[in-house]
């Protein structure tokens, strides 16, 4: 309790702001039915392509579906994408980066070439290629992002570990006869975690953008499910008459992305031991 209170008092403003934004997104994702004024999938042929009004604050689409309700409902899938598409790469990349950074040798050399190979391909093209092979859909999208994405985490982790393994406190731990697992997990990992956690936050925002891009291309979430990228794609044919179909889901992506960025910045400040 006191530790939690202390953490809260030390918390930087950006962390609190980011947490507030993410809390809004989380509530939308967990219980869209409580907030959304309409059923996101219900057609209303009496209210097609309505501009924003008191009854429909974000307007309606070509089937009369309420855009506000669809934008809120989409948070469920998009938050899922943010988490599922990044946790796998985070865990795998951290472990591999920790090991190749600490032990070096042949595994490190192979890893270096693998990184070169992956970064020379545009990330989106690589992911699209993998989804095209596996077939469209959310779970295949997670697999595709995971297959490519862990490399970036591992590269970041490896760089940190290579610096830390030469630190005197790591040498001291060796001289004190500590086991390698203890050195890696207690003396290196906590000191290398900050950049990777901050990158994770940014990556969640990027994953939503990527998920939206794939949704737009028809390779991610499938209609009629509400997903921000799918919503934007839906609106593109009506953009000149009904801008609201596209613009409000776009704002939702920006809002969520800002939330992750602020939270990541705040987390970086909080994890600086010198505070």
């Amino acid at each position, binding site marked *: 309790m006191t530790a939690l209170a202390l953490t809260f008092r030390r918390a930087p403003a950006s962390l609190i702001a980011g947490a507030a934004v993410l809390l809004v997104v989380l509530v939308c994702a967990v219980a869209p039915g409580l907030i959304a004024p309409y059923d996101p999938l219900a057609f209303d042929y009496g209210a097609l392509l309505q501009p924003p009004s008191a009854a429909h604050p974000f307007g309606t689409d070509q089937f009369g579906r309420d855009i506000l309700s669809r934008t809120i409902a989409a948070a469920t899938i998009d938050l899922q994408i943010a988490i599922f598409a990044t946790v796998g790469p985070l865990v795998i990349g951290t472990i591999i980066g920790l090991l190749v950074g600490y032990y070096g040798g042949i595994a490190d050399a192979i890893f270096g070439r693998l990184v070169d190979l992956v970064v020379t391909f545009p990330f989106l093209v690589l992911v699209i290629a993998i989804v095209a092979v596996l077939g469209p859909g959310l779970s295949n999208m997670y697999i595709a992002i995971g297959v490519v994405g862990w490399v970036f985490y591992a590269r970041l982790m490896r760089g940190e570990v290579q610096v830390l393994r030469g*630190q*005197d*406190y790591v*040498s*001291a*731990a*060796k*001289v*004190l*006869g*500590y*086991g390698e697992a*203890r050195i890696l997990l*207690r*003396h290196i990992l*906590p*000191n290398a975690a900050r950049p990777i956690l901050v990158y994770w936050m940014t990556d969640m925002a990027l994953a939503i953008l990527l998920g939206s891009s794939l949704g737009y291309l028809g390779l991610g979430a499938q209609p009629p499910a509400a997903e921000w990228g799918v919503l934007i794609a839906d609106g593109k044919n009506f953009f000149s008459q009904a801008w609201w179909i596209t613009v409000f889901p776009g704002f939702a992506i920006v809002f969520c992305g800002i939330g992750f960025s602020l939270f990541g910045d705040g987390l970086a400040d909080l994890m600086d*031991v*010198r505070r």
Partner: protein
Amino acid sequence: MSGTILKSGPVADAPIMTVDGLVKTFPLGRSLADVLGGRPVRAVQALSGVSLTVRKGETLGVVGESGCGKSTLARCLVRLHEPDAGAVRFEGADVLGLQGYARRAYNRSVQMVFQDPYGSLNPRLSVGDALAEALTVHRIVEGGAVRERVGELLDLVHLPRDAADRYPHEFSGGQRQRVGIARALAVEPSVIIADEPVSALDVSVQAQVVNLFLELQERLGLTLIFITHDLRLVRHISHRIAVMYLGKVVETGDTEAVFTAPRHPYTRALIAAVPQVDPHQRSAREAVRGELPSPIAPPPGCPFHPRCPIAEPQCRTVVPALVPRGGPWPVACHLAGPADAPEFIA
């Protein structure tokens, strides 16, 4: 600061640690052209045959310029580096082949204090956690006794007991160095190797930390290997000294005797280079000519000959061995006679 503490009197002759012909080279990177051209692997010759004896309960001062291999020697002794050749014996047993449990037991006996007090403590562990870790990993004390033992260790290095709850960044350099010493003492070693432990500290703090080492040596019967480039410090603290030059020990003997009548021209030059407070004692004589030669291509013969004021033709070709040469202690110089005129003494 408490009054000046002097090193304790002469100690028993029994060697606790012997180093014999220790060699360590660090290979340099090779370009593709080097590999294809079949050029030999170039390497930094950090240690080229270091031999030493450390007696139980004494302080051995290891002195030399930057780059002479002092730190490499320290790291080889605690097995942070694996030497390429030579032997290290601790209480008669070879330590270089130790693995697993035996190696950890050796490391419990021979601990190290590092130069940089800012880099040698894990910033994410409180002082209490860092000390408790050393105690529990080796099962020195367990359960509720850990906290009490942490307090005793802090008392031992004159830090307040509430330091246990604080983190390294909350301490000054001198206080951090005390934490580093307490951590080394936690595993109850018999030998402490201190690698330039005070050279990163303010002069006023240096004296306190040096006196702490002397006090701990007396209270705990520690053997100290004190590595430094500060000759006045080494004279104050050590019973015996070993002078290193370019990866070799060139002279070793009782501190006062060596300082009074140094037999190697390099030792004479080092002692002459110590700054004097009294202007009448100052010497205009150039202490050592030139720079330390590159350890990638050490000179043939005596490694000191390019800078030596008295070098003779044989010094350029024949490597001098570290032997007594008719005198009371070993010296690696062809020209050292049994009774040297102490002409360079400052």
